[in-house]
């Protein structure tokens, strides 16, 4: 770093105003803090929390049946609809099922990969493998979903590859949604597990082996309990990202309705209902966070 020549009269020094402002700031820590926080908090509280408040508030409004205009009359009918209407209950359960399936698939696929990356590959290869797993995160989300649309399409790659075995593509639907979401979020599962396995103290594994445990036993009794928080940490990503997704569902889901698509469908015509519906994934995510917090998973995020 080049040392600045502070003795030379820089334009900053010459102007007395700047210097007195600087020393005022230097003397008053609270003033500095207030100036630092004013703009970001104005943005996040006004633009963001304010928006969320408007959304929550509008969930208690209703719409005019003829003009579709939002009518600001306080009522809880939207929540009643969301929680009692069988259609929405089915959609909520389907979304939950998809998110759970995606999480389980990702955990099962990610664990062996992370294990190989952290414990078996040679040190040089390890670094390369981490980059290889990370790189697709930069590739466009939309492009990845689109790639799978081509794969699942009629006469597409899956049909072609399955032909010799008499298997054809399941087409666009819930199965495709699960596969694509699992694909999209897989790196988010691999990375925390990889970090957890890397931080596993080697002497614990040695001790287990010295005490006569087989590799399988060591895995079950030492490795798995110690890395479970990392798996939960990864599951926070896969689970909440799956609950909120709607673009991938639109692209490969066919007619599959999930919470995301239900919300998006209602935004223009019935914003109050969409607002009430959007509370459902948020509540699920908060519930999931509270549930996994006990495992200590959130500390490693």
């Amino acid at each position, binding site marked *: 770093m080049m040392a600045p020549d502070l003795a030379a009269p820089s334009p*900053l*020094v010459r102007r007395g105003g700047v*210097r007195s402002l*600087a020393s005022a700031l*230097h003397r008053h*820590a609270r003033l500095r*803090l207030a100036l*630092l*926080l004013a*703009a*970001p908090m104005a*943005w*996040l509280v006004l*633009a*963001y*929390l*304010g*928006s*969320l408040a*408007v959304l929550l508030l*509008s969930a208690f409004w209703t719409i005019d049946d003829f003009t579709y205009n939002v009518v600001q009359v306080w009522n809880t009918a939207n929540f009643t609809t969301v929680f009692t209407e069988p259609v929405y209950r089915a959609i909520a359960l389907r979304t939950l099922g998809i998110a759970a399936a995606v999480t389980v698939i990702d955990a099962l*696929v*990610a664990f062996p*990969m992370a294990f*190989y990356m952290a414990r*078996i590959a040679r040190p040089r290869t390890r670094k390369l493998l981490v980059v*290889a797993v*990370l*790189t*697709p*995160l*930069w590739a*466009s*989300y*939309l*492009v990845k979903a689109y*790639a799978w649309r081509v794969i699942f399409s009629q*006469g*597409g*790659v899956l*049909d*072609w590859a399955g032909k010799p075995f008499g298997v054809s593509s399941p087409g666009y639907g819930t199965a495709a949604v699960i596969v694509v979401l699992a*694909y999209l979020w897989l790196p*988010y599962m691999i*990375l925390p597990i990889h970090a957890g396995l890397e931080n596993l103290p*080697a002497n614990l594994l*040695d001790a287990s*082996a010295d005490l006569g445990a087989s*590799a399988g036993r*060591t895995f079950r009794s030492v*490795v798995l309990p110690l890395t479970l928080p990392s798996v939960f940490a990864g599951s926070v990503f896969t689970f*909440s990202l799956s609950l*909120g997704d*709607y673009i991938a569902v639109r692209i490969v889901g066919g007619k599959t309705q999930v919470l*995301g698509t239900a*919300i998006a469908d209602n*935004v223009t015509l019935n*914003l109050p209902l969409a*607002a009430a519906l*959007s509370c459902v994934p948020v509540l699920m995510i908060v519930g999931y966070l509270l549930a996994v917090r006990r495992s200590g998973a959130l500390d490693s995020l």
Partner: protein
Amino acid sequence: MTFSRRTRIALRAAMAAGLAVIYLPLLLVLLNSFNRDRSFAWPPTGLTTEWWSRAWESEGARSALLTSLQAGAGATAVALVLGTMTAFAVQRYRFFGRQAVSFLVVLPIALPGIVTGIALNAAFRTVLGPAGIGFGLLTVIVGHATFCIVVVFNNVIARLRRLSPSAEEASADLGAHTFQTFRYVTFPAVRSALLAGGLLAFALSFDEIVVTTFTAGPGVQTLPVWIYANLARPNQAPVVNVVAALLVLLSVVPVYLAQRLSAPALPGTDRRAGGGR
């Protein structure tokens, strides 16, 4: 812990299979951009570069790319300023509500994109609508900046934690005032963290579609929105494919830059929930 030969082979096979599943769809997009068949029936009947030249001439794709660059630049600029200020405040000061501030920064990306999207949509409609301000590029930038702040914040605060205050104290002892110390001591020390955070913020904004859908005005199409709008049009399919292939190729650029800018810039450590979905 020693592993049997069979375990090693099995795990290596799992790794190879996993990487194959990760990369084959991306390769398919690249290959299909040269596929002569318009409906991308597999296997391709022949290869052509016609779609690439057609895409180059596509007016819609070009203007969408420009919009994306503008939105990304605007959101990154806002996120850099606000994220850095928040990081300094949270790292350097102890104050009531400090935890709440860190939480508030993460919230936009922790909640599903669609919730953030329709919340901003509802607020813009209720608040800006009566004021005569419509949806446009500006509302997109506001939306993107909101969830980009966190990546700049994370990068800068990580750097500040490792920074010893002694250099700044020495600077003050030598007579530099607050602004000089910032300019000559603090800023050079956090510069690479700003670059990494800015890169991530730009990538996040460039890839975003959900919040964009709900905050963009009529006629404002970012590249992802353009791709999404054209997915359903069979006659646009070849051009969409070329744009998709181009985005796959371009994704190597930030990886390369991030590698050069040091490890904390990698996604996964700082980049939660890509695109805030």
